[in-house]
């Protein structure tokens, strides 16, 4: 059944092509259902392949399925082919699973939009690209998916393009990602130069060769990491992600939380045989960037007032955890967190979308309040999402975060402490968000002249996905429980794709228990402070909501200032140089010729005596010259 792997991306591709041809006619809601069934078909195919893979022995759980030659040129050969192994299949399962739910949700959310069909066309194209990214059996095909999801992200962020801010956000996302792609491309060149192939299995076979210096592999890893920093929104290229919230909320859930932004992490895990050959400072750097980003973004999330911005910075922060795990060599932990995060962050975004939907587009937390009774399903599921992301046992997020923290402790206690403090902040800002939205007094009808907002629960196409995701956020941790080797199902499952390259914990059971306990305590503190500040209002919220945090440490604005100021001026100076100096030289030459010509033209005045004079002077001159020559 592994041969059916090609079916997984074919479904959304067919959906996309069908919608391109007849989308305008099918309209609402048929286009939405068509796209959703395409995703459901893809999910079913993933399940079938998954069952098929389970029935194989673990060493047979790796198949390459080649479709056709893509780019053959000289020594360079690359195919369109799929690598089906536990890693790619895990990705497929949650991409198509969560993807189907978000497609379904969008049918309700995008109701009434004049470009309903176009939205689903893009969504299907995105899903197709994302599946190509994870299934590609070579780096270049992964890069195709990588750029494809980037382009779809661009199209969907600027979906409501009338507002220049949305259009700018889309452009910013694409260009920032391209900066990362520069690294990805250089990494591919380096790999091809050294091993003559971009196919994963061939690279893995050759990369450990003695002939390839560690400096080379280190550079490859660093360049791939630059790509991952762009896609997975790590410091300093995270800048595009908060702005990307300009897109419709299902897009934020699918692309900018659950799937696309994890592809940088996926890429680094996919090439784990290269990672282990690289020198330890490079993986250390990855861990530190991850931890730093996690803390940095969490601190900003504390003071955001836009419900989606909070979740955006939270996503950056959670991606930081995953990158930290990758840097520690804890690949299973990273995937584990990626999966649970896909569940609860998709849930939170969709919940936020449901709130925004019910509040006529209002996104400001300060204008919510007391929505619990008016939106019971949204509130209930959002609260589950809150407990999951905060890391309250036994919800999914607790298990995955706990595992990452254990590896961080093993690598460097400082990393662990940063992770722990981030967990505290996470619990705090999520508590803040939940209370401001669902508890307390309503704050939305304060101003009398504004349109009366009547918060209401969302339709069933929207609440059903919330319920499913809430369920998954509760039980998601079951796939990898730390109690004994046999409960670590995910680790065993992923083993064939890890080639025994994973770091193993050297911690005693007691240490693990203590670490877990400390994590629970810090989460408790976070939630407690959150409740005291926002529900009971015993602590002044100004203590936490510092302007510098609200302005994201002024990093974004500083970068914008440099780009718009000196950067723009440099571009302008070069353009001026082109006009004045280079083209000026050309026109100058033309002018010079013209002027010389007009001077020479003076001699052609048509007067016979001038010509005669010229002949005379010339003849005399020649005569003198000859005489001088002969006498000397």
């Amino acid at each position, binding site marked *: 059944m592994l041969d059916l792997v090609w079916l997984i991306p074919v479904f959304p591709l067919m959906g996309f092509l069908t919608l391109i041809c007849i989308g305008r006619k099918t309209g609402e809601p048929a286009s939405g259902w068509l796209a959703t069934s395409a995703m459901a078909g893809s999910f079913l195919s993933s399940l079938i392949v998954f069952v098929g893979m389970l029935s194989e022995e673990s060493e047979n759980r790796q198949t390459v399925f080649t479709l056709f030659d893509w780019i053959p*040129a000289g020594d*360079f050969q690359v195919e369109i082919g799929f690598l089906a192994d536990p890693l790619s299949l895990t990705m497929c399962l949650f991409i198509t699973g969560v993807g189907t739910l978000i497609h379904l949700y969008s049918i309700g959310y995008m109701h009434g939009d004049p470009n309903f069909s176009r939205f689903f066309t893009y969504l299907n194209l995105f899903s197709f690209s994302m599946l190509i990214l994870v299934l590609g059996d070579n780096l270049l095909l992964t890069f195709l998916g990588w750029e*494809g999801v980037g382009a779809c992200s661009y199209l969907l962020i600027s979906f409501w393009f009338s507002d220049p801010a949305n259009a700018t956000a889309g452009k910013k996302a694409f260009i920032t990602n391209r900066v990362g792609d520069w690294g990805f491309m250089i990494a591919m*060149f380096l790999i091809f130069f050294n091993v003559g192939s971009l196919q994963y299995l061939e690279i893995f076979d050759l990369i450990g060769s003695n002939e390839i210096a560690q400096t080379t592999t280190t550079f490859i890893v660093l360049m791939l990491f630059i790509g991952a920093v762009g896609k997975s929104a790590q410091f300093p290229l995270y800048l595009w992600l908060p702005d990307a919230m300009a897109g419709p909320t299902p897009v934020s859930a699918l692309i900018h939380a659950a799937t696309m932004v994890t592809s940088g992490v996926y890429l680094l895990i996919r090439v784990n045989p290269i990672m282990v050959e690289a020198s330890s400072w490079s993986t250390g750097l990855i861990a530190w960037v991850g931890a730093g980003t996690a803390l940095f973004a969490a601190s900003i999330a504390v003071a955001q007032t836009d419900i989606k911005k909070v979740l955006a910075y939270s996503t950056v922060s959670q991606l930081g955890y995953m990158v930290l795990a990758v840097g520690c060599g804890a690949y299973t932990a990273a995937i584990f967190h990626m999966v649970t995060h896909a569940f609860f962050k998709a849930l939170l975004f969709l919940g936020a979308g449901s709130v925004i939907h019910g509040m006529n587009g209002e996104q400001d937390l300060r204008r919510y309040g007391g929505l619990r009774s008016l939106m019971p399903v949204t509130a209930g599921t959002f609260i589950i999402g809150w407990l999951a992301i905060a890391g309250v046992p036994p919800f999914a997020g607790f298990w995955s975060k706990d595992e990452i923290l254990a590896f961080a402790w093993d690598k460097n206690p400082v990393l662990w402490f940063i992770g722990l403090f981030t967990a505290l902040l996470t619990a705090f800002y999520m508590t803040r968000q939940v209370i401001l939205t669902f508890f307390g007094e309503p704050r939305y009808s304060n101003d009398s002249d504004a349109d009366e907002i009547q918060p209401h629960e969302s339709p069933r196409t929207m609440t059903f996905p919330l319920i499913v995701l809430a369920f998954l956020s509760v039980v998601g941790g079951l796939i990898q429980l730390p109690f004994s080797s046999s409960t670590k199902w995910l680790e065993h499952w992923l083993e064939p794709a890890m080639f025994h390259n994973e770091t193993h914990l050297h911690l005693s059971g007691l240490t693990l228990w203590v670490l877990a306990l400390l994590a629970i305590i810090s989460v408790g503190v976070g939630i407690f402070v959150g409740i005291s500040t926002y529900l009971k209002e015993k602590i002044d919220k100004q203590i936490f909501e510092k302007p510098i945090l609200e302005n994201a440490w002024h990093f974004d604005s500083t970068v914008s200032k440099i780009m718009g100021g000196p950067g723009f001026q440099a571009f302008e100076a070069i353009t001026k140089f082109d006009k004045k100096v280079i083209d000026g030289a050309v026109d100058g030459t033309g002018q010079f010729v013209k002027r010389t010509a007009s001077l020479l033209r003076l001699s052609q005045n048509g007067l016979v005596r001038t010509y005669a004079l010229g002949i005379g002077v010339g003849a005399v001159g020649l005569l003198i010259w000859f005489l001088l020559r002969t006498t000397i």
Partner: protein
Amino acid sequence: MTSLLATASSATFPVLPALLVVPSAGALFILFLPRTRKDLIKLTALIFSTTTGALSLWLLSEFDSDSQSGMFQFVSRQSWISDFGISWSFGVDGISLFLIILTGLLFPIAFFAVDPEHNERSYFAWMLLLEAGVMGVFCALDLILFFLCFEVVLVPMYFLISRWGHGNRAYAATKFFLFTMAGSALMLVGIITVAFLHAKNLGSPVTFDLIQIAESQTIAQGTARWLFLTFALAFAVKIPIFPLHTWLPDAHTEAPTAGSVILAGVLLKLGTYGLLRFGLYLFPEASHFFAPVFLTLGVVGIIYGAVVAAMQKDLKRLVAYSSIAHLGFIVLGTFALNTEALQGSVLQMVNHGISTGALFLLVGMIYERRHTRQIDELGGLQHSAPLMAAFFTVVMLSSIGLPGLNGFVGEFLILLGTFTAHRWWAVIATIGVVLAALYLLWAYQRVFHGPVEKENAEVADLKTKETLVLLPLLALIVFLGIYPKPVLNRMENSVKALVVHIEEHVSEFEEPVNRYSQGEINSKESEKGHD
């Protein structure tokens, strides 16, 4: 000797001369049509150009891609001025094949898409003459014949710009003409010197036959380097290579839409093709010697073109400067001197023709509707013309080099090959990929996104005819992005032959290949076997 080098074609029909004769005959025929029968004139032009296109496609089907030698096919020779060894000599290999097809396809599309505003008869006559000249450049195997065609192209283009152009057209046309004329004047001296030196060194009668001269390589190293420069200057102006580029934005902007399409799509390739055929092939040693200069200029072009493009206020000028960046990639790939980069370069020539051709068509469609190309006077067009926006998006993404579309394949191969040969140049050139996204997305945002106001709200969406014009280009953009193999395979042997030719004639040169192909890297398993 020549019969050994050129594989005899199975086809008896002289298809290559026909590629020149058909459009020339068309040009002549049109002159006899009554001036007022505009439709008839256009139909005639379409028939002749479509026939030429069909001939080029027939060439594709008959082309022997398995020919291991990679040498010229469909060779046909007719003595012309025998006293000086000048002949009508044509041939096609995997390098010129796709440029011929590109020419054969772009002309009918440009004819179909755009009607001239006045003087239809002379417009189409000049256009057909232009096509004949371009075909001649791509097929010629005789240096004089090549030079003639290379120069003939200037005349129709001059008139197309100066008579049917916009705004400052007289200035642009004159600049274009003088610039390229000055560039190629020295080449004629170069050509004659090459032929006479070759004859003198061999003690044989004078010949201008490209294959004979290139294969025997009798000219002394120092002289050959100087002669190479006379050719290179002509091509550098034509491509154009920084800093000889300033005729291009003016010519592109002021030319009528069809003129810009042909100029960008085909004429610029005369220069890059010339570098391959009359640079690398004719002067392998000098090409290798001067490669660092051209690599550097290529990289400068990539970055510089992109930066200046970003700051343009006129949409057509922006596309023109983007061409400078794209052509920089082709120059880079040419002088990397390995198979991957060279294949990438040839493919990029075709891709750039398709994408930039489509881009100019779209800009022309916007201009027709709004009578302005000023970016800040446009805005929100996606509201009023969603289909046009969709086409523009795809073409733009192809130009940015999005994988899955055609532009990426060529660009990637060029960068990959260049990295193998000269890594730092490739590392810097790759920045161009970031910049391409910058200037194109920014332009797209200002033209298509944002709120729609006043005249922009009344812009009509694509008409059926316009959709029909763009669809084949769009299909090629997608097809070549996903399945470039048919093109790459057909050119591979010729490109390899060119590299081998350089290796044979340059003692210190060996094709830069990756370490695995050099045999430096062995798998872990085989190492364990040694233990």
